[in-house]
């Protein structure tokens, strides 16, 4: 009898467990069975329906344009939404008109007036008007805890003067405003639809949950479903107002290992893979029907040396910092980073106004000079220092690998480096508190304009300080005031040629003294099935330009 009882109990527990698993979705099961049957029926009916699968590791955490900032966020936001201005294909953030046709700016540089196209409709069928633009911007303006807020806080107010005219008033003049407009923060949402799902333009927005699984935009695709860490399905927008491409479904599939991606591409399970670096791409070289491609990125990796004497009296010495720059074996880092890498002169990457690279023939590794500088600083015999290294990577190049190379390079000028590896999170925290004397960091712009760099890398400590000014305690002094004079001109200069020249001058001045050592600017390597595509285009903001994809 007891056996019977216990057995009964076991069975009950199993049933309960299964019920618990199915709980919450159980109501949908029936519906899904049907819709699934329909789906499979459809796909067998229309054998011509085109599906493209992309494999990679996106780390996407949300699909709400007002909350995104992850590296792959704009790949999705560009497919599902439109902005007033968008990034021109294949460029590093050059804006071109999208929903807006053109704009005027007043003499103060504060008031931008945009004319909108009148033929844009959302996927829902609602027309896109100025009130949607105003609503979408106000929504993000009231989400201060979001990363997108950094790009939108320049906006003081936004108004619709008629159905197809929007007027932005900025808090201060900003030559990079158009570039900022191309980011996900300014995606235009279907205000009627989002309001139905908890959207609000005056704070207390609760639409994120809905926007994570649906889209409310006017882009060529709509978000069909998203299962985080598993896959994201984009479906062709039947109401798309522009010229549609010939793809019906795009699936982005999360693949955590590069090996799995490579195998899947070879087997034809996926059509594009994103997780390569120069080394792993070699496995695909010469494989029939596969094209390996490179795209430029704005990601750069560098060493940060604090000016705070309390952290390290030796490392904070500007002469020592200069010596470090001369002691680094740049050719070696280029070999590590692989094809497509460059060494930036300093804080302006290739692809930005006047971005300069380091001339390795004249300005490369020079151990004699480095040793002389060390002696000048009074540390000919060297010293011990801890290099903090987050467990992170730059486009597949592990920072620990870089750190070990730095350790060896600096040993040549008697600097004895001890490597300390920490979780990325902890390094960010310490970086914010400016408690590390020497560490590896990377940086990628939030928007593609040199103003982003000057706001981050120039000297300046305290409330009005810059990000790296604060992190390295690099003070503004009369000696480096020239940097700010030039930067202020760059910030508002609208003539691109003049701006590039000013920028070059700024970088040359910056090179004379700064607390950083720039190592590499990285390329993005990806590969695609050349039987499916003629070409796959890439830009750093959107990564793969999904809107441009067209199958053969």
């Amino acid at each position, binding site marked *: 009898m007891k056996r019977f009882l216990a057995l009964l109990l076991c069975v009950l527990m199993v049933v309960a467990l299964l019920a618990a698993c199915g709980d919450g979705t159980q109501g949908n099961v029936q519906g899904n069975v049907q819709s699934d049957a329909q789906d499979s029926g459809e796909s067998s009916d229309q054998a011509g329906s085109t599906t493209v699968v992309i494999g990679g590791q996106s780390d996407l955490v949300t699909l709400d344009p007002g909350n995104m900032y992850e590296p792959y966020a704009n790949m999705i936001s560009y497919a599902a939404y439109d902005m007033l201005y968008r990034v021109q294909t294949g460029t590093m953030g050059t804006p071109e008109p999208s929903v807006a046709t053109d704009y005027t700016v007043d003499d103060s540089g504060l008031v931008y007036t945009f004319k909108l196209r009148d033929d844009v409709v959302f996927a829902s069928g609602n027309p896109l008007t100025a009130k949607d633009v105003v609503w979408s911007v106000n929504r993000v303006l009231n989400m201060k805890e979001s990363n997108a807020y950094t790009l939108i806080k320049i906006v003081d107010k936004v108004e619709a003067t008629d159905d197809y005219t929007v007027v932005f008033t900025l808090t201060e003049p900003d030559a990079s405003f158009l570039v900022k407009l191309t980011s996900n923060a300014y995606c235009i949402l279907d205000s009627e639809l989002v309001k139905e799902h908890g959207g609000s333009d005056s704070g207390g927005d609760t639409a994120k949950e809905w926007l994570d699984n649906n889209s409310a935009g006017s882009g060529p695709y709509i978000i069909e479903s998203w299962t985080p860490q598993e896959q994201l399905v984009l479906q062709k927008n039947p109401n798309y107002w522009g010229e549609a491409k010939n793809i019906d479904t795009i699936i982005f599939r999360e693949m955590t290992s590069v090996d799995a991606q*490579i195998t899947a591409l070879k087997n034809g399970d996926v059509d594009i893979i994103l997780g390569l670096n120069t*080394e792993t791409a070699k*496995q695909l070289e010469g494989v029939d029907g596969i094209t390996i491609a490179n795209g430029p990125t704005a990601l750069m990796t560098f060493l940060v040396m604090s000016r705070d004497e309390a952290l390290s009296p030796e490392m904070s010495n500007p002469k020592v910092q200069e010596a470090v720059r001369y002691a680094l074996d740049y050719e070696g880092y280029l070999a*590590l980073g692989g094809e497509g890498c460059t060494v930036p002169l300093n804080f302006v990457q290739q692809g930005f106004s006047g971005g300069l690279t380091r001339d390795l023939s004249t300005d490369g590794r020079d151990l004699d000079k480095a040793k002389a500088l060390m002696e000048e600083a009074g540390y000919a015999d060297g010293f011990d220092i801890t290099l903090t290294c987050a467990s992170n990577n730059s486009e597949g190049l592990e920072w*620990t690998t870089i750190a070990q*190379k730095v*350790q060896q390079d600096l*040993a040549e000028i008697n600097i004895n480096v001890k490597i300390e*590896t920490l979780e990325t999170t902890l390094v960010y925290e310490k970086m914010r508190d400016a408690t590390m004397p020497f560490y590896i960091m990377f940086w990628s712009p939030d928007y593609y304009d040199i103003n982003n760099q000057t706001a981050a890398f120039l000297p300046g400590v305290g409330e009005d300080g810059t990000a790296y000014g604060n992190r390295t305690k690099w003070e503004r002094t009369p000696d480096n005031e020239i940097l700010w004079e030039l930067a202020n001109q760059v910030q508002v200069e609208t003539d691109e040629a003049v701006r590039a020249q000013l920028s070059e001058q700024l970088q040359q001045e910056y090179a004379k003294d700064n607390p950083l050592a720039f190592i590499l600017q990285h390329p993005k390597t990806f590969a695609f099935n050349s039987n499916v595509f003629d070409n796959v285009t890439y830009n750093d903001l959107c990564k793969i330009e999904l809107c441009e994809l067209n199958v053969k």
Partner: protein
Amino acid sequence: MKVLKELLMQKNIMFKVGLFIFFAWILIAILAPVLSPFDPINDQDIVRKFEAPSSEHWFGTDELGRDVFSRVLYASRVSITCGLITVLISLVVGVFFGGLAGYIGGVVDDVMMRFSEMIQSFPPLILAMVIAAALGPNISNSVLAMAIIWWPNYARLTRSIVISIKGNDYVTASRVLGATHTRILGKELLPNSVGSMVVMCTLDLGNAILMFSGLSFLGLGIQPPVPEWGAMVSEGVRNSAKWWISTFPGLAIFTVAIGANFIGDGLRDYLDPKMRRTIG
């Protein structure tokens, strides 16, 4: 000594193989500086990165052009030491805790055992990941994390032995004769528990080395430039076409673990009937 001789006299091949492998690794760990043709950390040569195995570099070179063979040899030092320390800490904490719980008994025993159960119900790897991520990944933190996970096993074993001793007729008799509790425990606990403890320790040593390399594989264990097998395998995962980078360190982990497991198994087979007789 007599026990060892008896052990070796047995027909258990696997025990002998395990013993051989394990002591070979300990020798390698001790003699690493002598055996390694290159310096595992400082002999970097970027130009010669990713070279396939050759007569000069037996196991090839890694992404910084270092000799994989030397690194595999050196890595044995860290892994084996950390495994031993982890097991030792767990043993000491577990024996103390379990002994106390079993000795006092009653409510105290109940509470203490529930506490150890709580630790056990905790997902070990997640606990280790959180500790390593939070306190910063380094040798001592990962050893700490693993010891926290492992000691309850020893506590339970010690407790059960202590309780069985307490119920033993002989003990009851000697207590009647006026022997103190501590003396009885000291006299009885050691000979009764040493066998099962040794078995558990050797088996756990293999597990500890596995888990340790797992943490390093995730980037939460030992940090570069110190060579460590798990970290080396993860470097190989990033460069999977260069099979030698991950294959040899993986084999190293495997052989050490299998050595420890063979020994543990052999010991258990040898001790099992005896243990049953004494513990009852």
